C-alpha cells in the first residue's frame, strides 16, 4: 500500500496555517480563534470541522483556507469523524505522526453535536475538541443555541412585551465535558491569545480526550462594533460572565482572576446591541441584576476574585 505524507507542506510550516482570503465577517472572533489554535498546534495535525461559520467561511468550494489536512462532514458528527481518523491512525500504527483536532461552533458542540462529542469523550480517543463559542447559530442568521447567555436577544429569542430575550441560562458545557472524567477541560478567550497558545500546546501533550472552549465574539450577531471584538471578549472575562479556567482530572487547577473592585456587567452589556433592550426601561434594571448574579456565582464557583 502506498503511503502518503500526513503533514502539510513544509513551506507553510512557518506561515499562518489558516490562509487569508477566507470570507469571515470583518472583526470575526472565530477566525481569529481558529488562527491562534492552528498557530499553536503547528502543521502536524488533522482537523475536522462541524458545519457552521468556521466551515462555511474557510471552505468556499473549490477553495480552502486550510493549510493542514481538513475534513468537513456534517453538523453533528465532527467528534465522530475525528474519532474515526484517530482510530485509523492507531490501526495503521501512525498515531505519532499527527494529532487530531475536532472543531465545532457552540451549536455544533453543545446542541447538535453533543451526543457525538459525548461518545468521543466516553471512548477515550486521543483528540483535542475545540468549541468556538460565539453564543448562537450565527451562520444561519443568529438563532439561539444552548450556549446563548441569559436575556440575550437573538432572532428566535426576541425582546418584546412578554420577553427579555433568551430565558434559559448558558449550558455548562465545560462541566458536562469534565463529568465524562476526561483528563483536560479548559476555557479560553480570544482576548488572551497567549493563554490559547499555552492551553492548546498543553492539551496536545496529554493523551486522551481534551475539551477546549474559546469565547469568540461575533460582531454581526452580537451587534457590536467589529473594532471592539477584543474589548468585548476581555470584558466578558473581567466581569466574570465568562470564567477562564482549567480542569485537570476533575479538579479546577488554574483560573484567570478578575480585577478588584469587580467590573459591573453593564460595562460588558452596554457595548452590544444584543443586550440593548436591557438599557431601555427602568424594569430592565432587575434583569441586569440577574445577569450580575450569574457573574457573581461564576466568581464564587471558580474562585476568580
Amino acid at each position: 500500500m502506498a503511503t502518503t505524507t500526513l503533514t502539510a507542506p513544509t513551506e507553510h510550516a512557518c506561515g499562518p496555517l489558516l490562509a487569508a482570503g477566507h470570507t469571515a465577517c470583518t472583526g470575526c472572533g472565530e477566525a481569529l480563534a481558529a488562527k491562534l489554535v492552528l498557530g499553536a498546534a503547528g502543521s502536524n495535525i488533522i482537523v475536522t470541522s462541524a458545519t457552521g461559520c468556521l466551515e462555511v467561511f474557510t471552505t468556499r468550494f473549490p477553495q480552502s483556507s486550510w493549510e493542514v489536512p481538513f475534513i468537513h462532514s456534517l453538523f453533528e458528527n465532527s467528534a465522530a469523524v475525528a474519532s474515526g481518523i484517530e482510530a485509523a491512525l492507531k490501526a495503521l500504527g501512525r498515531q505519532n505522526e499527527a494529532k487530531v483536532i475536532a472543531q465545532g461552533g457552540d451549536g455544533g458542540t453543545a446542541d447538535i453535536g453533543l451526543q457525538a462529542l459525548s461518545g468521543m469523550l466516553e471512548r477515550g480517543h486521543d483528540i483535542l475538541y475545540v468549541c468556538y463559542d460565539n453564543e448562537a447559530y450565527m451562520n444561519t442568521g443568529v438563532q439561539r443555541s444552548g450556549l446563548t447567555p441569559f436575556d440575550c436577544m437573538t432572532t428566535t429569542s426576541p425582546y418584546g412585551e412578554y420577553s427579555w430575550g433568551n430565558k434559559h441560562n448558558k449550558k455548562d458545557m465545560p462541566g458536562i465535558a469534565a463529568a465524562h472524567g476526561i483528563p483536560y477541560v479548559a476555557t479560553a478567550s480570544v482576548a488572551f491569545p497567549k493563554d490559547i497558545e499555552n492551553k492548546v500546546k498543553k492539551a496536545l501533550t496529554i493523551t486522551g480526550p481534551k475539551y477546549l472552549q474559546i469565547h469568540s465574539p461575533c460582531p454581526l450577531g452580537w451587534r457590536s462594533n467589529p473594532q471592539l471584538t477584543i474589548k468585548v471578549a476581555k470584558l466578558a472575562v473581567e466581569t466574570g460572565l465568562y470564567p477562564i479556567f482549567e480542569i485537570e482530572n476533575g479538579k479546577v487547577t488554574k483560573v484567570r482572576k478578575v480585577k478588584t473592585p469587580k467590573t459591573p456587567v453593564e460595562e460588558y452589556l452596554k457595548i452590544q446591541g444584543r443586550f440593548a433592550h436591557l438599557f431601555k426601561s427602568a424594569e430592565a434594571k432587575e434583569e441586569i441584576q440577574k445577569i450580575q448574579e450569574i457573574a457573581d456565582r461564576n466568581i464564587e464557583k471558580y474562585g476568580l476574585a
Partner: protein
Amino acid sequence: MRLDLGAIAKAGTSKANQTGSWRNFKPIFHQEKCIGCSLCKIYCPEGCVTMVEKKKYTVDYTYCKGCGICAEECSSSDIEMVMEEK
C-alpha cells in the same frame, strides 16, 4: 465547476479571494511610535499583518477587511483608520 471524488479542495487556495475590496476604512501603520508588541499581528483575524523588521509592521491591503482591531488594540496608538475612497 467540476466536483471530483471526495470534493477535495487544494490547501490554501482561498488566497484567490481578494477580500481587501470589502474595506471601508483602511488602517495606516505610521511606524513611528511602534514599540514592537506585535498585538496587531496577533489579533488580526485575517493573518495579514506582518513584521518587516523590529518595531515595524505592515498590512497586506489585498486581504485586509478593515475591521480596525489592530488600530483599537495598538498599545502605542500608532495605527490610524482612515475612510477609503474607491
